[in-house]
């Protein structure tokens, strides 16, 4: 009897051990499956309120489009066989620099974002970049063109936009190519970091090219009435006016230049002209030139990369434009393209690195030298300008009339032009 009980006890014990082992195997299986899929958190702030609302919203739309496409395609496979999918975490920065620093600190420390994308605008990005560097997070900046952010010794911040120092220099080249006899230029700009950087660089470039800068002056960001300012410009009788700031002041300035019949032959302004709603100015928009980081008309694809002997990755311009238009029911502006390319660069770097480790992704970003739908992308890797965009260049659009309809045309660089420059505009 005792023996039978002993045998039964042994059998029960063995059965229990076997069951436990099976149960462990059953619970271990999903853990193994879960280890296959990793979620990478991308943190950023959006200007849902405040003056950068329009540009920021488009930028975020572009980023979200990229994220949805990558996730829908099954994510990115890493070297260890796991698959990365992306999630985003964002807050409203109210277009406010102080909020940006507070929120990027939260994204880095409390939300533990793997990677950061910058807010819109140079000022906000400059405020965010120091936080990214401080907490050791790779940050792709977009919607931010100031050079100075990359001259502060940061090593983890990478710029997608053509820097401010080259933002308007092409306009001077375009003017020289269109009318070499012109010598007098007025450079006027909004008194903010980005516009001042761009205009100062343009001033230096124009002087080096032999132009006479008859007036170089800033105006307050809140300026609504440019009448007195335009009178002052008129006194100097320039052939060309270049500069500007952001959307509102740029469109107001262009409207008032037109209304006051300023006899200027060439007008190139920042930010406002490439925006689709600039057309609401009607005849005041006619002839106005603007630099754009990207335009749907610019035809960058794998074939163009192959003919130029460059590496290529990502969607073509046409594919991006079609996908964005389908998703948001509007043609993408360069802000939207900037949002998309920031994600695409991160994707390329993670794929190359085969890892989510900051140092590996940083090294992969430093080695990028390729053509994308956004144009050529390459980063400066010197300690003096680390992360500065050195591959990309601007395209210049001009509002022209086709019949009775106002439409944008790419007029510079010549090899990418879709139409001849209308000159003089008045």
């Amino acid at each position, binding site marked *: 009897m005792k023996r039978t009980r002993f045998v039964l006890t042994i059998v029960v014990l063995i059965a229990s051990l076997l069951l436990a082992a099976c149960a462990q195997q059953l619970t271990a299986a999903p853990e193994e499956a879960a280890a296959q899929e990793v979620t990478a958190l991308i943190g950023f702030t959006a200007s849902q*309120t*405040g*003056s*950068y*609302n*329009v540009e920021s*919203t488009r930028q975020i739309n572009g980023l979200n489009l990229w994220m949805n496409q990558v996730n829908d395609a099954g994510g990115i496979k890493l070297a260890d066989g796991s698959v990365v999918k992306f999630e985003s975490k964002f807050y409203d920065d109210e277009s406010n620099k102080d909020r940006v620093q507070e929120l990027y600190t939260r994204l880095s420390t409390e939300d533990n974002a793997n990677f950061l994308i910058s807010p819109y605008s140079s000022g906000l990005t400059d405020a965010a970049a120091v936080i990214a560097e401080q907490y050791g997070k790779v940050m792709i900046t977009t919607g931010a063109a100031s050079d100075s952010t990359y001259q502060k010794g940061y090593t983890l911040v990478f710029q997608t936009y053509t820097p401010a120092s080259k933002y308007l220099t092409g306009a001077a080249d375009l003017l020289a190519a269109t009318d070499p006899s012109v010598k007098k230029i007025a450079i006027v700009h909004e*008194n903010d970091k980005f516009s001042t950087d761009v205009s100062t660089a343009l001033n230096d470039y124009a002087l080096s090219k032999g132009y006479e800068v008859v007036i170089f*002056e*800033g*105006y*307050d960001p*809140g*300026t*609504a*009435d440019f*009448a*007195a*300012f335009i*009178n*002052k410009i*008129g*006194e100097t009788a320039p052939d060309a006016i270049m500069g500007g700031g952001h*959307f*509102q002041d740029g*469109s*107001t300035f262009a*409207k008032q230049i037109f*209304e*006051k*019949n300023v006899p200027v032959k060439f007008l190139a302004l920042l930010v406002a002209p490439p*925006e689709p*709603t600039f057309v*609401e*100015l*009607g005849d005041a928009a006619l002839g106005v030139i603007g630099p754009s980081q990207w335009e749907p008309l610019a035809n960058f694809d794998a074939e163009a990369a192959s003919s130029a002997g460059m590496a290529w990755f990502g969607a073509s311009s046409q594919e991006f434009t079609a996908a964005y238009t389908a998703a948001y029911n509007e043609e993408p502006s360069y802000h939207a393209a900037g949002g998309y390319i920031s994600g695409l660069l991160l994707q390329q770097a993670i794929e190359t690195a085969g890892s989510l480790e900051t140092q590996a992704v940083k090294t992969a970003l430093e080695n990028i030298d390729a053509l994308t739908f956004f144009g050529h992308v390459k980063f400066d890797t010197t300690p003096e300008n680390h992360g500065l965009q050195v591959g990309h260049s601007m395209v210049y659009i001009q509002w022209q009339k086709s019949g009775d309809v106002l439409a944008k045309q790419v007029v510079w660089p010549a090899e990418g032009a879709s139409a001849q420059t209308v000159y003089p505009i008045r």
Partner: protein
Amino acid sequence: MQFLAFLIDGLLIGFVYGIAAMGLTLIWGVMNVINLAHGPIIALGSFGVYLLFTNIGMNPYLALVVVAVLGLLLGMLMYLIAIQRVIDAPHLSTLLATFAINMIIIGIGTAIFTTTPRTVNFSLGSISAGPITILGTRVVAALASILVTGGLYLFLYRTTLGKYVRAVANNRAAAELMGIPSRRILALSFGIGTMLAAISGSLIATFFPFTILSGGVYELKSFVIGVLGGLGNPLGALAGGLILGLLEGVIPAFVTTSWVPVFEFGLFIIILLVRPTGLFGAKK
């Protein structure tokens, strides 16, 4: 001749500043309420004209009349909902109440219209002589400002209701003892102040692109004008607006435009020190 261009442009924008400030100084003067929702209401006035012009093709000046009536009603509604209960509370309460309205309007406005600048593509042509170009829309805005100022002056000084408003402004307790329905008069005053803001926004829409945030600039200038011209005095507000416009028009002829706010706010401090009740007489 060139200097004349600076002078004329300054004067023309001064009329707009004057009428933009009139509503703020009226409410401030009569009710001792600093209306921080003044800027967004100016922007709402611009959007009112924009919507009527772009959607049903209404002439902007006819749209202005519609916007003015809506502004009056909106102001009275705002008073009854948000201000009335705190009118006797410390100043901070009314300041916060109007700040809350300000945030609500900006929030709703941003959600509906975004901050993309809107333009009323309307022109009355222009007259040019050498460097001087005068736009028809600006001349009409100046004339409308004079008309509205005159109308408000007549209302305040020649009508019974206007006398009630001034009586409440001077001494509310005494006015109530004389049988004046001060609550209703205060609601009317807030309504008129809001109407004036909406009218100025309507006029601004005929020549400047705008967003829901555009009113902030005029609100800030309105404080300076309120101090310059005195509170609750329509003629003072118009004169203050003209002075500010002239400064903005003429100063850039001599120095860079960055100096304009230095002169403007320098004048603000000097007036506060030397004549705190304003240059043109104010509420006693």
